[in-house]
């Protein structure tokens, strides 16, 4: 199968859905001629024109608010927040408006809105351009949170997200844009809300998502050489959480480690861990572990930045610990 980058995969998803449905349009900072800060929307303005590919002012709150208003009145907007680090500025709009209008209004409206953004560490950009804030959003009933790791999932999930009638926060990862992977030429969709076992194994289940998937896969390779078998689940969607797939795996391996890039305290691993405890306590042979980011703002120094997020070695160490090796 052909291999394309995560960036290209996302770009194809945008193009295909905009061709398919003229209610779909894209709006955000520098999404036009510049093609988006990470190049995902390159070529779109040439293809679809200025009306459907709209460069906005640096006004995150109005971007989200306007996306919502358009979604409530017959359009299917995709809005972009350049870095998830800036999403605090429009958190009021996302939490109080986007996520709540449908419920507050007794189900009498729907919000087919995709908020595309980008997060994670790896480019030594410091504390305002390296955050992983997904856990705020799994605490907001009314939205869904999607975080693809592979080009295949990126394309399939973005297409599905655009067709979903619910608001979706779609979080890409800055270190994955250049990563290549197999993506079919023909159309396909990946359902929102389904995790996937990306590697089968028997000794321990690693539950992860986004960039950390690749750290886990590398760790698993190395562990295999040492005779340790690891199963890896890529959540792909964080809300709703596919707890069933997780529990099935944990029932098999009896051990779970959550590997997450965000700050540990109050992070996504806490919720995932609690749900495992609530659903599979009797199957656990050891306490669930979290391999997570440090509880600090992201430091600039490249060495500290690396230290602040899980490494392959951290994962290997945790696996060995949980296995008592």
């Amino acid at each position, binding site marked *: 199968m052909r291999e394309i980058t995560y960036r290209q995969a996302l770009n194809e998803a945008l193009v295909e859905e905009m061709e398919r449905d003229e209610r779909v349009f894209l709006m955000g900072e520098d999404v036009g001629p510049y093609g988006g800060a990470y190049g995902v929307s390159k070529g779109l303005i040439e293809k679809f024109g200025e009306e459907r590919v709209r460069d906005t002012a640096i006004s995150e709150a109005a971007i989200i608010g306007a996306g919502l*208003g358009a979604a409530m009145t017959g359009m299917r907007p995709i809005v972009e927040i350049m870095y998830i680090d800036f999403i605090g500025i429009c958190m009021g709009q996302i939490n109080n408006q986007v996520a709540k209008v449908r419920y507050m209004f007794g189900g009498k409206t729907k919000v087919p809105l995709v908020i595309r953004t980008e997060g994670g560490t790896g480019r030594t950009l410091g504390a305002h351009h390296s955050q992983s804030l997904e856990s705020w959003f799994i605490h907001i009933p009314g939205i869904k949170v999607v975080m693809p790791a592979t080009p295949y999932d990126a394309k399939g999930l973005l297409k599905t997200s655009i067709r979903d009638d619910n608001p979706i926060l779609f979080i890409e990862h800055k270190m994955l844009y250049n990563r290549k992977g197999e993506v079919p030429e023909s159309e396909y969709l990946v359902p929102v809300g389904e995790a996937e076992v990306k590697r089968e194994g028997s000794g321990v289940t690693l539950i992860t998502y986004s960039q950390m998937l690749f750290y886990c896969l590398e760790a698993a390779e190395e562990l295999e050489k040492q005779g340790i078998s690891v199963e890896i689940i890529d959540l792909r969607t964080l809300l709703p959480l596919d707890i069933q797939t997780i529990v099935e795996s944990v029932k098999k391996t009896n051990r779970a480690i959550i590997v997450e890039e965000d700050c540990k305290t109050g992070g996504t691993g806490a919720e995932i861990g609690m749900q495992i405890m609530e659903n599979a306590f009797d199957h656990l042979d050891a306490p669930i572990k979290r391999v997570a980011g440090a509880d600090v703002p992201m430091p600039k120094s490249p060495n500290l930045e690396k230290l602040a997020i899980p490494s392959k070695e951290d994962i290997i160490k945790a696996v060995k610990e949980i296995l008592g090796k």
Partner: protein
Amino acid sequence: MEIKKEEAVFLLKKMMQIRQFEDKIWELLSKNIAQGGSHLYAGEEAVAVGAISVLNPDDYITSTHRGHGHAIAKAGKLPELMAEILGKATGVCKGKGGSLHLADLSQGNLGANGVVGGSLGIATGAGLSIKLRGTKQLVVCFFGDGATNQGIFHESLNMAAKWSLPVVYLCENNLYGMSVSVKRASAVEDLTKKALAYDMPSENIDGMDILAVRKTVRKWVDFARDGKGPSFIVCDSYRYYGHSRSDAKVYRTREEEKFWKGRDPIILFGKKLIEENILQEEEIKGLESEVFDEIEQATKFAMESPLPKPEALYEDLYV
């Protein structure tokens, strides 16, 4: 006065509906039949009724935390609105929204909002949607003087002006944001100055005079429908009740209240209609008691309606 009797009756009655509706809510609040917060619109009727009366049914509005008046003016049905405020299953939002979240999408009311300034972005996006869909609709976005100090107000006006969106931004200046006067909150007292930052046309009018409101809003509605873009209208008005039930109104004088009540929009309009021989005193009295009955019926409906079933808790969240 260029107004037909039928139309005059419609306007007067709508204003009376709002007034009596609000007085009734106040009564229900005092008796603890209505619970929670309700920000009452009494005193400001000419603004909502005047502005909305020049719209087409498929035009949109966005409303505020003080939204009963907008909802009633935008073809809202009194029983369902009253039921919603009481949190009943028959309410326009099935009892999930309440006073702060009255919305009726089917009537083009994109919703009240518990957050000051919370609807500004939505209105702007609805305007963008109209432009992209190429219809002849437009949006009237209501908000208070206090909301003009919120960041999203500025971001929205800039966006709408830049993209020439069909949105009329209508500021209800009732002199206070909760307890803080415009004078103490805003660097400019003349709020139309805020539109200068966006080269947006703006006008300040008497919000107690329904005909003035209609005339001005119609002008800017036509402007928007002609594709000429957004506008900013400031309607001076006054809320009769306190901000909410617990408000002791220490921040304003009884004289000020008296002054504004002396300019009551309903009385003013009624007098004018009598003077110009369009309506007779008795007809007005008749209207008042018609509305009284409507409100009583709405109240009865609301009070007798059931609360939502427990299962409703998890309904209506996702599509």
